[in-house]
């Protein structure tokens, strides 16, 4: 344990109003901490730069899943376990439930939060590709009020995001339009549990008359931020799945991603597996997808 707790301050105002008031009073001073599964690792390693933290763990305003007719709003403080256990998330947003199930082990799923995953913004974050394909929107909250932005513009670069220093993510809004899409999610990691992803995919597809009517593909760990593959998607719309299409999709996917060599894997491996995952998705869509 390489940090001295005496040098740190942690406050827990206990409600959202007080937290955002604090962030407004002293912007950039207080680092929000939810379940701690990212920040406490840095703390133990002695590399947590922040010295003053504000706890947003278990804030009732952040830890609800509100169900509306057209969308659900997942509180940013919901844990992976909350996601896995929620009936609507399981039934209509299975890509998110799958991602939650392959994050860490049970103990970390009980503490890690969706908001934390977004704001920590690791290129390898498990839930983020799913949010891209579901076309999530974020409600950001501050002492000034709330604003709502499309999730796809949130990450502006590696660990850079569309979030002011006095703001928190309040909810992740997921439109309830995807229940009859064919979902496919897979992660390639160093082992079957507790693995940071080398590549991961979240994808949705819908066939009509045997051809692809709509398709959404997002990948993690192949760029500084999670990526949709708009060129690949464009190429696929209206086509029937056939070997030549799979080949074209593989090539297109490879042009859209920027994988790197790092301590976990190589760029060549990531590119190859990303292409394989896209092809595997299309193969399964063809075999198991159904028309609306």
């Amino acid at each position, binding site marked *: 344990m390489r940090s001295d707790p005496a040098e740190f301050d942690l406050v827990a105002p206990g409600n959202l109003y007080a937290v955002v008031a604090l962030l407004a009073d002293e912007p950039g001073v207080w680092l929000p901490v939810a379940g701690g599964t990212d920040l406490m690792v840095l703390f133990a390693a002695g590399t947590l730069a922040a010295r003053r933290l504000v706890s947003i763990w278990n804030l009732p305003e952040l830890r609800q899943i509100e169900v509306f007719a057209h969308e659900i709003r997942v509180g940013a403080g919901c844990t992976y376990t909350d996601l896995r256990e929620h009936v609507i998330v399981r039934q209509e947003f299975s890509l998110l439930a799958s991602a939650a199930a392959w994050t860490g082990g049970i103990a970390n799923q009980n503490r890690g939060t969706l908001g934390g995953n977004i704001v920590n913004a690791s290129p390898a974050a498990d839930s983020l590709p799913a949010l891209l394909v579901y076309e999530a929107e974020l409600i950001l909250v501050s002492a000034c009020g709330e604003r709502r932005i499309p999730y796809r513009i949130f990450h502006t670069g590696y660990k850079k995001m569309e979030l002011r220093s006095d703001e928190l993510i309040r909810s992740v809004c997921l439109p309830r339009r995807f229940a009859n899409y064919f979902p496919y999610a897979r992660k390639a990691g160093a082992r079957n549990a507790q693995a940071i992803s080398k590549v991961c995919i979240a994808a949705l597809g819908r066939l009509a008359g045997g051809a692809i009517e709509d398709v959404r593909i997002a990948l993690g760990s192949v760029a500084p931020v999670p990526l949709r593959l708009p060129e690949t998607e464009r190429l696929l719309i209206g086509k029937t799945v056939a070997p030549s299409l799979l080949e074209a999709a593989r090539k297109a996917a490879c042009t859209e991603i920027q994988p790197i060599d790092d301590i976990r894997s190589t760029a060549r491996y990531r590119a190859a597996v990303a292409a394989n995952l896209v092809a*595997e998705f299309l193969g399964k869509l063809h075999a198991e997808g159904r028309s609306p």
Partner: protein
Amino acid sequence: MESTDLREYHSVGMSVPRKEGRDKVTGAARYVDDISMPGIVYGATVRSKVARGRIKSIRFGNEVAWDEFVIVTAKDIPGKNHVALIADDQPCLAENIVNHPEEPILLLAHPDRHALPKAVEAVSIEYDPLPAIHSIEESERCSEIIWGSDNTFKTFLIEKGDVDAIWNNADYIVEAEYFTGAQEQLYIENNGIIAAVDAGLGITVWGSLQCPYYVHKALMTLCALPEDKVRVVQTETGGAFGGKEEYPSMIAGHAALLAIKSGHPVKIVYDRLEDMTATTKRHPSRTRHRTAVSKDGKILGGEIEFTIDGGAYTTLSPVVLSRGTIHAGGPYYWPAVRIRGKAVATNAPPNGAFRGFGAPQSLFAMERHMDRIARVLGLSPVEIRRRNFLQPEQTTTTEQTIKEEINLNHLLDRALELSGYESKRARFAIENESAGSKKGMGIAAFLHGAGFTGSGERYLGSVVGIEAHADGRVRVLVSSAEFGQGTNTVLCQIAAETLGLPYEDIEIAQPDTREVPNSGPTVASRTAMIVGKLVQSAAVGLKQTLSGCALLGDTYTRAQFSTACGKYAAARGPLKSYARYESPSGIFWDDEKYRGEAYSAFAWAVYVAEVEVDLTTYSVSVKDFVALQEIGKVLHPVLATGQIAGGVAQAIGFALYEKVNQQNGRMQNGQMTNYIMPTSVDLPPIRVFFEEIGSAHGAYGAKGIGELPMDGPAPAIVNAVEDATSIPFNSIPLLPEDVFEAMTARLEPGNAAIPLAGAR
């Protein structure tokens, strides 16, 4: 106790309760970091940031209140500045030169544990860098000499028969190279020691360790103290696997030095990053085989060159090399063979003991090579082994005659049946054509010698004691350490069985050099067999003492035993019986020629792996695993099964998951998040089976089993991967990235060594 209780008590062969089990499941077990004492302070180590260099200056940054700290350098060492083991080349604290990253240079102590990390960072050391070596090949080139005259710690030469004559008679000559990487023991409890000094009693250390008397000897040398002024106590140890065989001498030395200078008890416990980056690993290896084979698949002879990377200092490399060299020929009959073993130096933290101790490395090569020979000849992996298995009365590579009635063909038959080898292979051949994954089966046949090599046990001269209390309870006195493998339980079972008493009546003393004799280090798969046999002898001696005083008959009840003990104690005082190791007669071993009876017993095994190679992610997973071994006598079925299953799991890690990423001698992935060991969802059913042909040398016929399961899984798995993919992988760990590179390069099967991305 009922005086009419005429029950016969047996415990050997039964799964009795683990002696210290209750404490472990209730959280009452006390590991070193659970222990504190009044006035204790904490220690930390300042380590080299370069692989090799001369220390130019040491500065202590202004941001720290240094007057609150105790600082120890090499100048504070009362005795000799080296960690006493085999050679004297490893400093306890570097003085002028550092030879590996993370080499310890100075020590700090402070009452507040949290003050230390910042203080360590505030010590700035400047070096004049020296050229450093980071591979076996670089070391061999000798363009830079970093150790001795030629970077070579040790060599061995084994020669049997006339090797030079066989090549002309060969129908085939099969040549290849095989590599294994470093591996971290990854005990879940990091290294830790507490040291305290008492003016009258001397130094006491408590800690997580395998060999109390190794630490005892090292502290005597470091602190210039006589035997009776150093005391070493083993605390409950959370896993070791060899990683706490020699390293504790280093950390104990550090804690002792700080205790001496500060006048306080000192606790040093590493965090995971320090433990991984600074302590010993399994030796990386390169094995070259060149084998002459007849067209009917018989090995005529060959040359084997086995080379291991020892890191910067000698430590245990000569002994690891010894075992790896002796095991390099596997369980096969070699009419003629020349085996050259060599351990070389590189500028990395010294490598050390890890379960298997050289044998997993050389046996990986042997078992991969057998499959290669099979392919060249057009024989199956099964058939090539049948034609070359050692038979009783044949001699090994060291010309040891196999006296055991071992039947390796029978073991192979049984393993094949248990694993469904033939029917699965037939099925996979069809399924692999079209599936999204490829499946394969692989075999490994191997042996593992129990106990110290050759004359090693005689040199150790292990001693075991048993004492009987006045109330009839019995206490076993050994320095053998429990670290999960069941030492406490098994030795108490043996004592109970020999004495005819209930297992519950037997205790075992905590290993404390003040209380117990030196039964040797807890290594080399020797404890059940050799120490157990001594426990048996000491127990017999105890009975004989009591019957010699006419206090006990040849048979007796539990009540009669305790009465006898009471009477003895009243008349003569404490009752203790000791037994000392004696070499069996007729055992011949030539240390110069490395010829003769290397081990008094071998365990034998055939393992079968079923793997699946995922064609989307290129990951290899083991889907089923059969581990069949002949081990003499199963003293405790649950413990023995657990040992094998755990060893297989660790070896699956060795084969497919655990890669030490080293850059300029420093491990880059020293965290559990990026040093990958298998979790509960990564492992197959590990199906364990035993056969028993008793060995005269072990207690109740037992032979060693602790290391055996480390030898077989890696080659069985890679053999299976080749079966599935037709790619002759020759290097482990075999990661998905390596499988990907080889598959997409679309090599023809049967090619020679392939350079693999990131393979070594």
